[in-house]
């Protein structure tokens, strides 16, 4: 089969107030190929995809968009859908109150005279999920699913369209390794069917596993397009960040002090399933200046450990938690924060940010006491502090007064980090801290976390990225089914050992 050109974009320019997000971009997709799009946070990748999918309608950008050789002017998502374009957006866009099946068919319900064919919806969803190898109940409410599963629903939703052009904007950022394998396999199958795929991801191993071509964006411009065979990771990274990145995980020598946080026998029952536990007899300690990594598969209870200690899980729990020798049990996140805890959560939209608010207000939110005097917020102080962090973390934003919802996904994550760093915590909890963050910024974040540990903060980091866990942690504990199934020092920890412990169901 001769690959034909499904999609072409020429000279696309898109401006937002204060930012030129895209500056003369060209891009194309052939049938039966995966075209990976790489670039730093804020490079303009998602913006381009929103143009292709009609979310930014014709007229709000300049340049030409061609599907199958004919020029198109999409005015809405419906237009692009009927032209055969399907998209998985970077930020989850599901209705939590509706079921998996209802979400998958939202906006295009099979119907007769306006009446939904419920059985058809259910059956087609079951068939689709089975075809994809996703295990979930079509009639489960999406709000009851974990974020990884929600992302699978999102993918299924796009695939349900039977599209010719499939756009995936960081589809795997919340998936576990096995889920990613299933996902990649699905993409390979779609490729064989002639579907043209655009894949945006910050995980370069995925790019090289599946992409046929790679285009690199930098600062709103398409820098180069390679055949994937002809390049390696270093070259792509260098193009993305505009410089050579040598060492992602610099080993910093730190002095590790006495225990700061000691958790003993923490058990948390499942809120709805009687007799089942989210966490069972979990014990560990973190010392001053130490980075403790928590590895494990999705749903193994890693997030729950953090949430439970942080007082963010309602309901009963048993066991003891000690902070610097003092027994504590936080009933609310506020108490935890007052005692010097900070939590960078995995779902930044839901738990981390006030999207409508400005960058500076978000950064100051958890430390208003520090920013305010006699209960009155000192705006100029707030701005000054925010600007310090914007510089330190290289947050890409027009200024500190811009709304957070207008930042690119990765930069939003940096705002969350800044917010918690400002609280000057004793104990820092990180839950998937680099989800959706580009390599350059990742290296910066690792450096920041290392620096904080060096200053004596006890860090607990949950991550699905084994290289990150291995590269950063002084010690690693591994979770499986709500229990600790392994503990390794930095020298003992290897990928194989961690994976073995992570699948040790007892």
């Amino acid at each position, binding site marked *: 089969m001769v690959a034909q050109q499904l999609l072409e974009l020429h000279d696309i320019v898109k401006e937002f107030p204060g930012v030129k997000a895209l500056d003369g971009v060209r891009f194309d997709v052939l049938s039966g190929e995966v075209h990976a799009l790489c670039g730093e946070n804020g490079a303009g990748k998602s913006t381009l995809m929103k143009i292709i999918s009609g979310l930014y309608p014709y007229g709000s950008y300049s340049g030409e968009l061609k599907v199958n050789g004919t020029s198109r002017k999409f005015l809405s*998502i419906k237009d692009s*859908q009927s032209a055969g374009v399907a998209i998985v957006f970077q930020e989850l866009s599901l209705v939590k109150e509706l079921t998996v099946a209802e979400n998958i068919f939202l*906006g295009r319900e099979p*119907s007769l005279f306006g009446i*939904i064919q419920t*059985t058809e919806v*259910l059956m087609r969803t079951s068939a689709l999920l089975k075809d994809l190898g996703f295990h979930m109940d079509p*009639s489960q*409410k999406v709000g009851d699913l974990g974020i990884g599963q929600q992302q699978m629903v999102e993918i299924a939703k796009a695939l349900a369209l039977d599209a010719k052009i499939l756009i995936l904007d960081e589809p795997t950022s919340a998936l576990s390794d096995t889920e990613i394998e299933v996902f990649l396999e699905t993409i390979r199958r779609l490729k064989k069917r002639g579907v043209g795929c655009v894949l945006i991801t910050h995980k370069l191993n995925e790019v090289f596993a599946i992409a046929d071509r790679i285009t690199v964006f930098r600062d709103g411009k398409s820098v180069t397009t390679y055949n994937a065979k002809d390049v390696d990771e270093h070259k792509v990274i260098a193009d993305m960040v505009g410089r050579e990145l040598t060492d992602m995980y610099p080993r910093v020598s730190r002095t590790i002090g006495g225990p700061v946080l000691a958790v003993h026998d923490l058990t948390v029952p499942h809120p*709805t399933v009687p007799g089942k536990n989210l966490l069972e007899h979990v014990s560990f300690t973190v010392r001053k200046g130490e980075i403790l990594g928590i590895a494990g598969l999705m749903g193994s209870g890693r997030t729950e450990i953090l949430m439970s200690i942080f007082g963010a899980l309602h309901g009963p729990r048993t066991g003891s938690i000690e902070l610097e020798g003092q027994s504590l049990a936080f009933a609310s996140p506020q108490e935890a924060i007052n005692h010097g805890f900070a939590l960078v959560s995995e779902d930044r939209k839901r738990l981390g940010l006030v999207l409508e608010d400005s960058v500076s207000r978000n950064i100051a939110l958890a430390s208003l006491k520090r920013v305010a005097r006699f209960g009155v917020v000192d705006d100029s102080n707030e701005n000054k502090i925010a600007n310090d962090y914007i510089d330190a973390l290289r947050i890409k934003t027009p200024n500190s007064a811009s709304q957070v919802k207008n930042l690119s996904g990765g930069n939003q994550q940096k705002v969350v980090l800044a917010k918690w760093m400002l609280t000057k915590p004793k104990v820092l909890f990180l839950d998937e801290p680099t989800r959706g963050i580009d390599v350059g910024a990742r290296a910066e974040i690792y450096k920041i976390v290392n620096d904080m540990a060096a200053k004596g903060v006890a860090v607990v980091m949950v991550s699905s990225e084994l290289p990150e866990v291995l590269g950063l942690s002084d010690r690693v504990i591994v979770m499986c089914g709500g229990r600790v199934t392994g503990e390794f020092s930095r020298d003992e920890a290897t990928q194989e050992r961690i994976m073995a412990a992570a699948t040790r169901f007892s």
Partner: protein
Amino acid sequence: MNLASRLKQSWRMLTMVFALIAIWIIFQWVTDGAFLQPRNLSNLFRQMTVTGTLAIGMVLIIVAGHIDLSVGSVVCFLGVILTMLMQKGWSAESALMVTLVSGIAISAVQGWLTAFQKVPAFIVTLAGMMIFRGASMGVTEGVTIPLEDSWIKTFGSAYLGQEAGWVLTFVAIVIFASLRVQKYRNSVAHGVSTSGFGSTLAMIVAFSSGVLLFNSTMSRYEGIPYPVLLMIVIMVAFHFIATKTVFGRHVYAVGGSVEAAHLSGVNVRKIVLGNFLLMGLLTTIGAMILTARVESAQPDAGQLLELDAVASCVIGGTSLMGGKGTIYGAILGALVMESLNNGMSLANLESFWQYIVKGVVLVAAVWLDVVSQKSSR
């Protein structure tokens, strides 16, 4: 829907039913047995029809994340139009037609302002509440306009004959049973998970006994009142719209997450406008029933009706945050509200108590909701 959330939902309905029964028992006791007399129950159901009809439309509006505070005043205003036209010699049909067109037009304007111009529904309809109250007072010059004799009065005080009542009951049971059996067969044929034939049978039995009890109680007085029949038909129709149609699904999606609905290609503005148009239809019907019941239009009719309707929805489990709520729940809520009104009047409680008690029940219902949700998180 999976078992857990289904249980949670029917649990919600069950507590409502038990709360209602408890209220009824208390009133039965306080009123020395007057409350549960067929005559009083017939009255009670008749009285709830206006609130119930409005609550049905209000559910959809609230689920989509908006609110309509104008319905009380608009009901009054439409009643004025209806009676005045008939007073001028118009036939009942043409007067009602004009009333309907006015009702739809009013809600179309309010819906357009909300959906397309992005003026918050709270403000638009609060303004509507003032405007149409004022208009009613102005047009009537403060006097009551009697309703001319016509078939419209049927929806005030007429009753369905005994035989017709039994025939209807029988038909309802047959339809319900065959639908259930059909559904069961379908799910077995498609291998979609079911909880066995037992639960289907239990539902049929429960439904049948409920309907039979209702009809026999009503026929021990005069029979089923026409307005109640009308409300039931509307309830079933709107339940169908809410749960089975694309439009209904989109209403819930918009309320659950505007963003997600928009990204899925749902035309959010049309959905919101559609909601308001349906509300216009129901407001007209509400106006007709109210006018027929009091046989006149009065410039102060329908005061606080909008709040009763909202309260009914909320007591019935509708979330003011949007995305959640059922038609049946709202009707149950309306029944609770009206039972309180009726029972307390019957017990000769002073009217100030009625307000206080209704307020307490409203807060208690929502509080229970919030608490039960928190504990299941």
